[in-house]
């Protein structure tokens, strides 16, 4: 069963909250553990949220392109993701809890990947 771990971090313009006590080495160690467990389907770190662009297409077919943010208020922002393949939700939750992104005000949202019936 595939699960996506959505790693949410507090916004970058609030550096005090981003410092959740985990280091670059913690992330390397977590990534190594996921890779060595043979469960990693895919993983990405996303570029800074200020580089994001939102696209919406209206009923008339016209594109609306906006820059989403930066946000002044505190709001969690998707900073990266893993797709892992594990037997059940309990194991997915264990991996989410091991992820440094779940520490110090950050959170990891676990979403099952929908199974398309063939």
């Amino acid at each position, binding site marked *: 069963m595939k699960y996506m771990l959505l790693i949410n971090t507090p916004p970058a313009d609030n550096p005090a909250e981003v410092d959740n006590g985990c280091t670059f080495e913690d992330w390397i160690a977590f990534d190594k553990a996921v890779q060595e467990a043979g469960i990693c389907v895919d993983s990405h770190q996303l570029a800074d949220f200020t580089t994001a662009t939102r696209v919406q297409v209206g009923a008339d077919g016209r594109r609306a392109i906006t820059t989403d943010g930066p946000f002044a208020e505190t709001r969690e922002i998707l900073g990266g993701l893993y797709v892992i393949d594990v*037997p*059940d939700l309990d194991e997915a939750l264990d991996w989410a809890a091991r992820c440094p992104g779940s520490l110090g005000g950050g959170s990891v949202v676990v979403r099952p990947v929908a199974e398309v019936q063939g």
Partner: protein
Amino acid sequence: MEPAIAAVFREEHGRLLGALVRRFGDLDLAEEVASEAIEAALTHWPVDGVPAKPGAWLLTTARRRAVNRLKRDQTYAAKLAVLHVDAQRTEPGPSVDASLPDDRLQLFFTCAHPALAAEDRVALTLRCLAGMTTVEVARAFLVPVPTMAQRIVRAKKKIREARIPFRVPGPDELPSRLPGVLQVVYSIFTEGYAASSGPALQRIEVAAEAIRLARVLRGLLPAEREVAGLLALMLLIHARRDARTAPDGTPVLLADQSRAAWDRSMIEEGRTLVIAALTGGSPGVYGVQAAIAALHDEAASVETTDWPQIVALYDVLLTLSPSPVVSLNRAAAVAMRDGPEAGLVLLDALAEEPLLRAYHPYALARADLLERADRLSEAAEAYRKALTLAATDADRAHAERRLSGVSATLRNTPM
């Protein structure tokens, strides 16, 4: 349905469902064939008599239905085959009836899984383990039937689609997962006990159901002291059920209850369990609360209650699970030990607690202590405050009665 047959179904439902989920790995299929088996029993048993092993009869019938269903529906079967492999990873639970493995513990942990919404855990546990219908669960929680049906569908969908496993957590996980299961059972009990609304009798049945579930858990996890503690706590509170409401339905305070109406055998059972709960390790929150309840139940009157020991137990409870409500109860116990002024000092120190500021029991306790300290005009003021915070008619009526008592004394007292 004949009462004897209904009792069998209630008793067997959780066990039947647990065994079916373990075998087929799918709660929906398990529920479907379980109810088909019960329907079949309703047709056959009144004619042929209840079989010697009703549980085994139901399980065999349900299994046969499930296998037939899977033969007919190959796509469904293919999907379940995957789940089935996972179900094989878990060992069967300890067997109570030698012919039937008991898989209810797995079901308890699935229904109370932390990934489910708290209200869904309670609904699912009542439905799967207590064998209550959606209509019965809805009635017990005073929620419209469609709302409750939606809750149950939502919970089952999450179990299926997010693949919440049917398994008993390992020894390393148990300490963090068991409190969730106990919390579900206790919240079923308090829902029945609170008598916030609804016919009293019906609420008592809900409380009794929580006790039955705790007995099942106690049988499945005999070494877990907090299970003993929870069962003890509920028995020791439930023992007072006949004395705690007046004939008109208004609550009767502990001090005014007729202690002769308390259920002695239930108290005895609870006391034995308290000893089990508090022996052989550090105490847990349910064990300590049960010990407090036992001290109340053992006392012949409020005056002769062992208040120093109750205060000491509240001190332990505060270290295990600090909360303003526990501090409030401790202050009330101190007032009984050392007098109302000592209690008032502690209560006033809690005045700024956000949880207590609009909490009716806090306002009422303060009014009560002021009255006992003979500070009557302050007491009247405090009862008026309590009156504005009362959530139920019964609470309002009680506060009004106390207020008019104080007001009458004030009028008759020369200034």
